[in-house]
Structure formats: C-alpha cells, structure tokens
C-alpha cells in the first residue's frame, strides 16, 4: 500500500535550483532513503511533504491526503525531524517536550521517558546551552514521542556520536518492524545500508536514481590504502595483478570488488605496515554505480 506519494512535483527557484518533475512513492512499512548532494532539493521536497510549500506543479500526498490542503490533519500521525534544530531557546529540554506534547494535545507519556533513556538525554538543561548532539536528541524525541505512523527525517543523525547513531539505527529498525513508514535523508552509508530497503538519489532537483539497497551493495566497490615498508615494495605490490587506483611513495590504493580474498593473500606475502579504508560517501557509491554521465 502506498503511504506517501510524490507526483510530478515541481518548484522552480530559477538558476537550476528547486525540484523538477519529481515522482516517487513510499509503501507502508518501508524505510526509504533520500539522498543527494547539498542543494539538490532534498529539503525543498521535504517542505512540500510537510505542507510548508505549495507545489507549483504536481502534488504530494501522505495517507491519501494532499500535503498542502490537509497539512494539519496529516500532522496527527506524522513525526518530523527538521534539517536544522531551532527551538524556543529560553526553555529547558523538558519544558520544550512538555510544551510540544500539550501543543499536540497529548500527554507526556512513558514513551517519552523511554526515548530519553535510550538516547541518554538529560532534558533539564536549557536548550540554549545544549550541544549540537543534545539538541539533535531533543529533535528525535519530539519526532517519535507521539508514536506516529509516518516519519520524515531530514539528516536525523547529524551531530550524534557513533554510539548514538547506532542507537538511532536500532530505533529505526524497531519502528520498521512495527510497520511504520519512514522517509530518511542521510549522508551515512552505513545508516542507510542498515535501515533502508530502497534509496532515491536526486541531483539538481531531478531524480537520478531509484533502487534497492541490495542491488547497490552488490555493485559496491571498495578502496583500500595499503602502506608498505618502502617504495620498492609498493611498486612490487602494485604489480601483483590487483586493480590499482594509485601509487604514492610507499602507499598503494587498490580497488576491490568481490575479491577481498585475493587482496588478503597478496598482503600476506608483503611487509604490510598499515591498511585503511577511506570513507566513501553514499553519493560516491551511487555515482560509481550509475556512472558520472548519468548525473
């Protein structure tokens, strides 16, 4: 069943900015990854879903309701983490949570407490004095505390440390198991890999790719930077028949795709001093998969 649908959504800000004829849909119980470089139109799309912007052309619906016309109604069952956390700074975290609950005409419940414990957040601190990570946690609690059916999360883990990112992934997986529908924009490959079933990528406001995460993972290639004792060893290592990306001094960068065993056996025969895997962003992987020409 389709829960969230975007059809021909267009908003032209001029100079190629905005979103253009964007269409995709998200099914119930699906975690949908929404990716793209900065300025690609992710946040603009999300603003349309939140009923903050009126589509110039096309439409978007959540639960069969129009996102612009029925915005207040849709919010009853929607949780939102904005890309930027701006609260009422004079409040403490606890005051803000209680304000939001009452504002929604809900009571602060057990779930709020459970979420605070899960993210180890002390809400008695003034929002103004909170670190970026703490503010992010407050945002997460606000989005989940009323147990909504649909969640729209704009870079939900920015500012969180790896431990908390992990807890967040666990939370998403639990919600997914409970049948919640989630749209999540993210930059973290691991996060998307672990949670999302499908991923869309947009660039310059246009949908450039829409695929299963499994398909992507299968096509994924990885880089390894191997440090050897000296330049001679590096040169010899590079001649072993692996796909070499780059040699610089005593470092060799190789590209591995489904042949990790071969790399390991070669490394066994050489005086390897260090091995690192540079971070690869999801966009890199996507672009690699679809080829730069597609962008």
């Amino acid at each position, binding site marked *: 069943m389709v829960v969230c649908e975007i059809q021909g959504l267009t908003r032209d800000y001029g100079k190629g900015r905005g979103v253009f004829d964007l269409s995709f849909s998200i099914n119930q119980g699906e975690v949908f990854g929404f990716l793209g470089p900065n300025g690609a139109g992710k946040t603009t799309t999300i*603003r349309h879903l939140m*009923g903050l912007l009126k589509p110039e052309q096309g439409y978007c619906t959540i639960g069969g309701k129009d996102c612009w016309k029925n*915005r207040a109604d849709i*919010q009853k069952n929607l949780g939102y983490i*904005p890309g930027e956390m701006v609260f009422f700074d004079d409040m403490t975290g606890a005051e803000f949570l209680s304000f*939001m609950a*009452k*504002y*929604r005409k809900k009571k602060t419940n057990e779930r709020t407490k459970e979420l605070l414990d899960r993210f180890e957040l002390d809400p008695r601190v003034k929002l103004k004095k909170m670190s970026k990570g703490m503010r992010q946690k407050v945002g997460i609690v606000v989005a989940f505390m009323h147990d909504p059916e649909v969640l729209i999360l704009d870079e939900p883990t920015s500012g969180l440390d790896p431990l908390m990112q992990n807890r967040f992934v666990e939370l998403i997986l639990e919600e997914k198991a409970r049948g919640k529908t989630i749209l999540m924009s993210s930059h973290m490959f691991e996060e998307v890999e672990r949670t999302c079933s499908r991923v869309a990528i947009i660039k310059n406001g246009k949908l450039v790719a829409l695929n299963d995460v499994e398909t992507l993972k299968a096509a994924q290639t990885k880089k390894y930077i191997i440090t050897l004792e000296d330049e001679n060893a590096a040169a010899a290592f590079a001649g072993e028949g692996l796909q070499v990306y780059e040699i610089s001094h005593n470092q060799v960068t190789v590209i591995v795709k489904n042949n990790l065993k071969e790399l390991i056996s070669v490394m066994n025969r050489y005086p390897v001093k260090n091995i690192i895997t540079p971070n690869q962003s999801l966009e890199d992987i996507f672009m690699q998969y679809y080829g730069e020409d597609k962008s």
Partner: protein
Amino acid sequence: MINWTLYKRGIKGSWKTLLIFAAVLTMYFTVIISMFDPAFGSALDELAKAMPELMAIVGMTPASAELVSFMEAYLYGFIMLVFPMVFCILSANKLISRHVDRGSMTYLLSAPVKRETVVFTQMKVLVTGLFVLVLYATLLGIVDCEISFPGELDIVKFIMLNVGVLCLHLFIGGICFLCSCIFNDSKYAVGVGAGIPALEFIIQMMANAGEKLEKAKYATFFTLFDSDGIIAGESGAIWGIVILFVGAIILFGTAIVVFSKKDLHI
C-alpha cells in the same frame, strides 16, 4: 480556533515587556497628574503658553480646567500614543516573523494545529497585551486622580478616551501584525511594521504644528482618534473609533489569510 498551550506560552513571553511598559506609564501618569492644579492652571499650561508650537507638536495644547481634558492633553497626545505603539511593534514581530526568520515556526507547524489557529492564537496574545496595557492605564489614571483630586475626574469620559486609544492601538497592532505575517525576514517585518505607524505619527505631529500643514491630518489615521472630540462627546469622534476598530479587524483577518496561504522556507 485557539491553541491554549501556545497562548499561555505567548503570555509568559510578554509579561516582562508589559511590566516595563506599565512601569514607564506609572511614572508618567503620577508625575503629570501631580502637576494638575484646578484653581490656578497647571505648570504645564504655563509651559504650553510659553512655547505653544513645540507643545502642540506633541499634542499638548492648553486644556480647560477639567481634569479629564488635562489628562487628554498631556497624556493621550503623546505618551499613550507612543508607548503602546512601541509595544505593538515589538510584540507583533516576536509573535510571528521572528519564529519564521529563526526557524522555530517549524515546530509550531509540525503538529496537528492549523496555521489559522497558530496566527489567531498569536494575534490573541498581542491583543491581550494591548488590552492589559490600556486597562492598566485606565485604572492607574482613575486611582491616581481619586487619590490626588477626589471627585474631580469625569470617569465616564476618561473610560471613553481609553476605549478610543485601545481601538487606535488595535489598528496599529493590526498593521504591525500583518507585516509580521507578510515578511519572512524579521528586519523587513520590523522595518515596514514600525515604519508605517511611525511615519503616520510624524505626519500627525506636523499637522499639529501649524496651519499650513494642517491639511496633512487627512493623510494620517491618527486623526481618527480625535481625543478632543471624544471628551466633547462629538459623534464624529465616536465614528473614528468605530472605523479604527473595523480597520483592525480587517487587518488581523488579512494577516491570518496571508500567513495561511504563503510558502514557508523553514
């Protein structure tokens, strides 16, 4: 149509400002009322006679011997116009455009609360603040006069004067609030929202100043608040109040419609 949680929060955010304005008004009221002297004409009247042009600019023209006319001349020509006006400008900006500018409006709209309700609630906060401020001035004036000059004040006329000033400020508040709803940028909201009433007020002062510029009074809505006419019980002055009140309703109504229909980049 109203969200009480947001309303309470708005009131909590306004009371400090209200307290400051109330304190300033208390000071002016006490000092000026103490200058009233029914038998010999007050010190202020002497001043007004000494430099009539300057005093006229700020609406202070020699009054009759009645206490209510005295207060009308020396409190409701400048002080009760300017201070509540500043309150309108500050509050209207804080209630809508600052939330949009900073981004905290996101949280008010990511809840099952209609935009119309958000704006209406914020409008109620502004109107409540104004009402409390004018009510305070009314009570302060009555109590102060009864203590200093028992039985001298024509209370009915004084209340009518305050009803008039309240309607004037509802109208000004409507302008500021509408600007706060139109502009996403706080600086434009304040610039235009404060600029229009301030300009109109300057025109009013110019019109007060001299015969040549007297016609300028037709270019400012301050003319609709005819304090002399209210004291004299003229029907034209009552109509002025009614027009201001209706104007305020139209301005606030427009503000609600504008905000509900506009695109928000937050």
